């Protein structure tokens, strides 16, 4: 298939359409605005619905309503907007509604900066809303991978009847890169499913989509959610392991940071430094095994590299390392981007200091 040259946000919009998304509600926010802009004309072309909502809050609740009918629904935003949507995301999870959510991260906390960043790891993986629920979180590191993951995201959402988050960043959203688009998925003739609201042509006694349960019912739901999380951890982890065989130093990085880190690793390898990388593609479920099962007689240390200060993945890494090797971090933040050379230098400095101390 011919390679196209597309902006990340637009490529993700097209991937969503091809993956079967037929409803999008969103609100303008930099650096993801090209996503609603693209879908505003693209969805009507495939008989889908685009709504520019009055707020982030309204947008996620429109998605909630659309998902209740069985329509494949999506919303997108950037960090501060995702905070506003967190109520709705919790409700989607509680009401067991499938939906795809895109976060094109920018600098934080607060209004932060409009430049790219990776400051939302904890929000995405630990507490995307109140109530202690989890959802699958995918973290692409290229426009192509973003396209592939967004294309598949509705399948995971439908399978689990759960919201799914694709965690991007402003670089991936606004940059342009080569991309191959997947074919259009064939969609069923009706959006109705056994659990959805809306008359399906047979006698209906009243379906209820609800985020509120009597006490005992809620506990049962929460237990099922725990079992589901366990299934995710067993079956759905996606991870890239790069040059780990002889690695004495292991970088852990996701998304755009992993691209920068990989270039730094290649540069360092040329200088004889034995460094490799673990790149989580699913941030939740986190690739625990990849880190836990490293050869700690060989590994001298791990370095968490993120476009975030502090490095937010570090605690998850440390929980797998369990003190068997030191964990370091390097990051940039607040609109300052990671770059190859500074990252290489930072890794070199960490290794040198560790060696002189050891």
């Amino acid at each position, binding site marked *: 298939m011919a390679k196209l040259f597309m902006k990340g946000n637009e490529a993700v919009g097209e991937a969503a359409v091809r993956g079967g998304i037929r409803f999008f509600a969103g609100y303008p926010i930099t650096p993801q605005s090209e996503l609603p802009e693209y879908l505003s004309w693209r969805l009507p072309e495939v008989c889908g619905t685009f709504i520019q909502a009055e707020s982030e809050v309204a947008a996620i609740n429109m998605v909630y309503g659309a998902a209740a009918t069985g329509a494949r629904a999506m919303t997108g935003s950037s960090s501060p907007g995702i905070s506003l949507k967190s109520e709705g995301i919790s409700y989607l999870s509680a009401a067991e509604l499938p939906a795809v959510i895109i976060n094109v991260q920018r600098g934080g906390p607060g209004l932060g900066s409009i430049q790219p960043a990776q400051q939302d790891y904890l929000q995405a993986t630990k507490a995307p809303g109140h109530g202690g629920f989890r959802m699958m979180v995918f973290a692409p590191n290229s426009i192509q991978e973003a396209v592939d993951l967004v294309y598949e995201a509705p399948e995971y959402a439908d399978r689990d009847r759960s919201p799914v988050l694709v965690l991007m960043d402003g670089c991936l959203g606004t940059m342009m890169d080569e991309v191959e688009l997947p074919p259009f998925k064939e969609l069923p003739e009706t959006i109705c499913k056994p659990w959805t609201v809306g008359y399906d042509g047979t006698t209906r006694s009243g379906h209820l989509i609800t985020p509120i349960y009597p006490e005992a019912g809620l506990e049962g739901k929460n237990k099922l959610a725990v079992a589901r999380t366990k299934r995710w951890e067993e079956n759905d982890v996606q991870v890239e392991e790069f040059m780990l065989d002889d690695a004495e130093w292991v970088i852990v990085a996701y998304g755009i940071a992993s691209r920068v880190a*990989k270039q730094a690793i290649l540069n360092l390898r040329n200088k004889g430094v034995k460094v490799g990388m673990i790149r989580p593609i699913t941030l939740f479920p986190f690739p625990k095994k990849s880190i836990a099962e490293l050869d700690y007689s060989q590994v001298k240390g791990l370095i968490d590299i993120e476009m975030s200060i502090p490095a937010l993945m570090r605690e998850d890494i440390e929980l797998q390392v369990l003190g068997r090797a030191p964990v370091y971090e390097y990051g940039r933040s607040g609109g300052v981007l990671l770059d190859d050379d500074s990252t290489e230098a930072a890794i070199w400095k960490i290794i040198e200091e560790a060696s002189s101390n050891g």
Partner: protein
Amino acid sequence: MRFTLLVGGSGGQGGMSMGMTLAESAVKGGKHASFMPLYGPEQRGGAAKCTVIISDEPIISPLPLKTDGLIAMNEASYKKYIKELRPGGLLVRNSSRSTSAIKRDDIRVLEIPADDIAVELGSSKIAGIVLIGAMLGFSNMMDPKMLMDSLEEKFESKGDAIVDLNRRALYKGVELGTKAAAG
């Protein structure tokens, strides 16, 4: 070969769309390319930049620290981005809009009165094309014909005169760049 180019100009000068067209034309021509914009909060004015990477190999990181080439379309972007040019890097500067003394002696410089040349050729709007042509000639980063093919496609609907104007601007720049590279 891999070449990183930073295009800096005020919003509205067309640097962004130029960088985008360059990267797109490289991909169409069978190379690998990425385009990374960095906008300020303002829609117009100020100093906006984009980074274009063109490479024979797949691009691993789209975020280099230093750039191999810099096109400075105005004084503000020259001042802001000159420090991002690596030692030995190539500067193509629009001397119609940027005239301050160049203090670095570790770079190669080509100064072009692109606005004046553009007006002579028929439109002030094509100054950016002159500059990018000059960088192509100066750096030999990519065959200018690849870009011309994309420009032809882009302006086809606007008529032969516009396509021809772009061609003359591009190759005028290439000529100046090639001459500077040789000298």
